[in-house]
């Protein structure tokens, strides 16, 4: 810095004004390459203390990579990072954290075998002579938990808690450090709307105290809700920086994808479900006789479900809404035979017992689980293998695979879902989130399901892929498949559903027609359902 003040007084004021105007973080011409892809190409960005900056871009645009470089998880190939004007080269993520740069990554890093307090405080546990003072530690943790609005015991084992609670703890851990730079990479993906509101409140308070916050999210609305400014990356290049007032959602999307997109969440009127159009592989073998329900559930009860009644018609999309912990995922898993339960389940009019995934598949149910990488895909296997896995046994002769038939199945799935892969033999690991999700859906095309269960079908996929997935779900329904969408994203449910069922505390507490439902009506129902047992729409 070339300032050379003449008097002490002016020095102080100068320093103050410099502090106010100089960027806290400067990203200067950063390049980063991974095998086969240029992740970042000379990205330059200046970020100031006391602002919330959104970093937007499609999957693979380099957002997360840039933030991981900033937080010391990767080192750049070229370019420099300056913190308060001084160049920094992090030796590790821990070094960056000590210097006040905190990152909550997309993939939550928690210690599931440790208690909530240990996860929240980590190395900052209060000690006396090196021995942890547990009472004081739990007290500190309690305060953080209160800020987060979490009603859990500080001594509870974290791994035993719901995924969204774990995620909240991971975020709370970073927020409670009061860092100078807080980077939130997809903080809200698994959180409920209330939890999101809590986190945003805490983040705003941090900003007002002078923290620089960088937000990455797939929910575009959140940029408008929280950010002062948005920077947009596309294919590793910075393509724009805008004050949030100067943007609307359509403009943001077109900056991100480089083309105009009709609003993703716009509702498309579906004709009343009826007999399938010919030629569609999902239905050609089905006999579309009755418009009767594909699924009829009565009195479904498990440890987390109470007397659930549910009907899904042929070609109908039914959305299942509810706060986290309302039992959405449990219901999905129960209908796929993964949760022990009592009660009656009829599929196509036939009473079925679902005690395993195999029985559910045999009964005509397909399941797209919430955790794509952990449960949906064998990432190390090819797209071909993932897509055909559900039909291996059926297509094989005497246990020997019929590769010709499988190739047809794989080709068909790739074409129908427009999965972008160089070849069916590409490893699934190499695909973007949206394309991976299409693979998970693709493996159910071949089994010709009557009922498809989609748990958080668009989590962590970019806007363009989201639109495609929505169209795909529409077309599956049009072909006569009954679809249940379990989602924490209300806009998604409103976009897709013919009917929305609201759950609270393991019960169905209400039902709304898809055309009449609004975010408010669903939310009101979900909350009211926690107090009294049933609400009429």
């Amino acid at each position, binding site marked *: 810095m070339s300032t050379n003040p003449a008097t002490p007084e002016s020095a102080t004021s100068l320093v103050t004004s410099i502090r106010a105007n100089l960027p806290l973080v400067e990203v200067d011409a950063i*390049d980063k*390459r*991974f*095998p*086969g*892809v*240029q*992740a970042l*190409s000379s990205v330059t960005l200046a970020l100031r203390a006391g602002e919330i900056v959104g970093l937007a871009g*499609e*999957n*693979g*645009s380099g957002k*997360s*990579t840039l933030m991981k470089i900033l937080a010391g998880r990767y080192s750049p*190939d070229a370019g420099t990072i300056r913190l308060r004007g001084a160049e920094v080269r992090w030796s590790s993520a821990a070094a960056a954290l000590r210097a006040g740069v905190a990152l909550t990554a997309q993939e939550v890093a928690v210690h599931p075998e440790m208690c909530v307090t240990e996860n929240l405080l980590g190395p900052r546990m209060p000690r006396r002579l090196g021995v942890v003072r547990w009472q004081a530690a739990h007290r500190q943790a309690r305060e953080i938990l209160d800020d987060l609005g979490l009603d859990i015991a500080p001594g509870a084992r974290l791994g035993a808690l719901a995924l969204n609670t774990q995620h909240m703890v991971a975020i709370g851990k970073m927020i409670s450090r009061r860092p100078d730079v807080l980077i939130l990479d997809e903080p809200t993906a698994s959180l409920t709307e209330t939890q999101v509101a809590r986190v945003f409140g805490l983040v705003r308070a941090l900003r007002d105290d002078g923290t620089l916050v960088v937000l990455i999210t797939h929910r575009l609305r959140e940029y408008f809700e929280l950010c002062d400014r948005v920077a947009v990356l596309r*294919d*590793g290049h910075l393509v724009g920086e805008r004050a949030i007032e100067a943007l609307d959602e359509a403009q943001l999307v077109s900056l991100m994808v480089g083309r105009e997109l009709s609003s993703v969440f716009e509702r498309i009127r579906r004709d009343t479900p009826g007999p399938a159009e010919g030629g569609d592989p999902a239905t050609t073998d089905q006999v579309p006789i009755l418009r009767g329900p594909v699924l009829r559930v009565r009195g479904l009860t498990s440890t987390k479900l109470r007397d659930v009644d549910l009907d899904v018609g042929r070609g109908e999309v039914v959305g299942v809404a509810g706060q986290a912990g309302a039992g959405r995922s449990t219901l999905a898993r129960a209908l*796929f035979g*993964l949760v022990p339960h009592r009660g009656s389940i009829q599929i196509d009019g036939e009473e079925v017992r679902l005690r395993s*995934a*195999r029985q559910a*598949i045999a009964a005509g149910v397909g*399941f797209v*689980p919430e955790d794509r990488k*952990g*449960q*949906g*895909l*064998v*990432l*190390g*296997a090819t797209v071909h*293998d993932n897509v055909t*896995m*559900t039909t*291996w*046994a059926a297509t*094989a002769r005497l*246990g*020997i*695979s019929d*590769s010709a038939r499988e190739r047809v199945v794989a080709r068909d799935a790739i074409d129908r879902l427009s999965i*972008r*892969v*160089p070849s069916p033999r*590409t490893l699934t*690991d*190499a*695909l*973007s989130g*949206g*394309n991976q999700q299409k693979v998970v859906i693709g*493996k159910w095309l071949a089994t010709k399901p009557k009922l498809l269960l989609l748990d958080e079908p668009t989590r962590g996929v*970019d806007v*363009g*892929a989201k639109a495609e997935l929505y169209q795909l779900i529409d077309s599956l329904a049009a072909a006569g498949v009954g679809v249940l969408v379990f989602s924490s994203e209300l806009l998604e449910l409103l976009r897709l559903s013919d009917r929305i069922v609201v759950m609270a505390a393991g019960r169905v507490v209400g039902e709304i027609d898809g055309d009449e439902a609004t975010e408010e009506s669903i939310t009101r129902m979900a909350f009211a359902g926690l107090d009294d047992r049933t609400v009429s729409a």
Partner: protein
Amino acid sequence: MSRTDVARSVAPVAARPGRAPRRSVVAGVLGSRVGPFIGLGVLLGALLLFQVLTEPTFASPNNLTGIGRAMAVPLLVAAAMAIVLLTGGVDLSIGATLALSGTLYAKLVTSDVPGGPALLTTLAFGAIVGFTVNGVLIGRLNMSFFVVTIGTLSFYRGLVFLWTETNTIDMYGDPVSNALGDRAIIGEQVPIGLLVSVGVVVILFFVLRFTTFGRSVYAVGGNREASELSGLRSGWIIAAVYGISGLLAALASVMTIGRATIADPNMGTNIELGAAAAALLGGIALSGGVGSIWGAALGVAFLAVLSNSLSLAGAPTSWQLIVTGAILVVAVYLDRARSRAERARF
């Protein structure tokens, strides 16, 4: 969309011809899935060349036949280990299962059971024990493979000592084990045992590549839960894999007996370590789901040639152990480096 969208991901690279990837070609190859396989092939080729040029006795027919004879049992055991590794497990009890099956075979033969039925009984025994004990405990009851196979390792070896009263059994003159373990055909140059082992590897290759079961092995090893949710019987597939491991251990036991002409209660001790080294060296991932049975076979060939070279050079057995141990560590390091390279993306 991004790394798979070829046009897009390639474009920035093409636009900057001066910015070649920093990683060297060698690192790139070793980081890929076939990397360990190619690397090992080159290493083996270099070793063979060096031996042929510097050690006149190496290429002699007798020495080569000796290497083949010494390879037969490790090849079977490495194949067993490879298929277990593919499911994400490890079978530490192969050596002990080998000793238990071998003892059964010796007891049957010394009780005047004819060789053929004795062999079949032994094979069935190995398969059933592997399937019902290791297999069911690990696959169906979801116990840790590490705990279970360490347990059975100790349990079976103890049974063998109890059963044999720690005495060796003389098996000299038993035609079946002699044929499998010692005899060579085609001008007495090609050991029957080696042919059998290679045949087993070929069969396993076809099973792994072209049957529903074999592909399920890869899928379950890659992600057990996703496989289960796709309708694969992951628990039974894992159980079956330990059954195959037991079957191959039993076959290897008869070969071991034939080669030594005795049934030693200590036979097969630590044999699983060399097998794991060979499989990992050949590119089978410790985490499961990745690798080829040929890689394991190549690993065995490499270790056999190396061991032969060391003994031709007059190095004592202790050095062979030291070198094998060092190679195991290097193989695991390469495995880690490979999976890190695979993960170093977004």
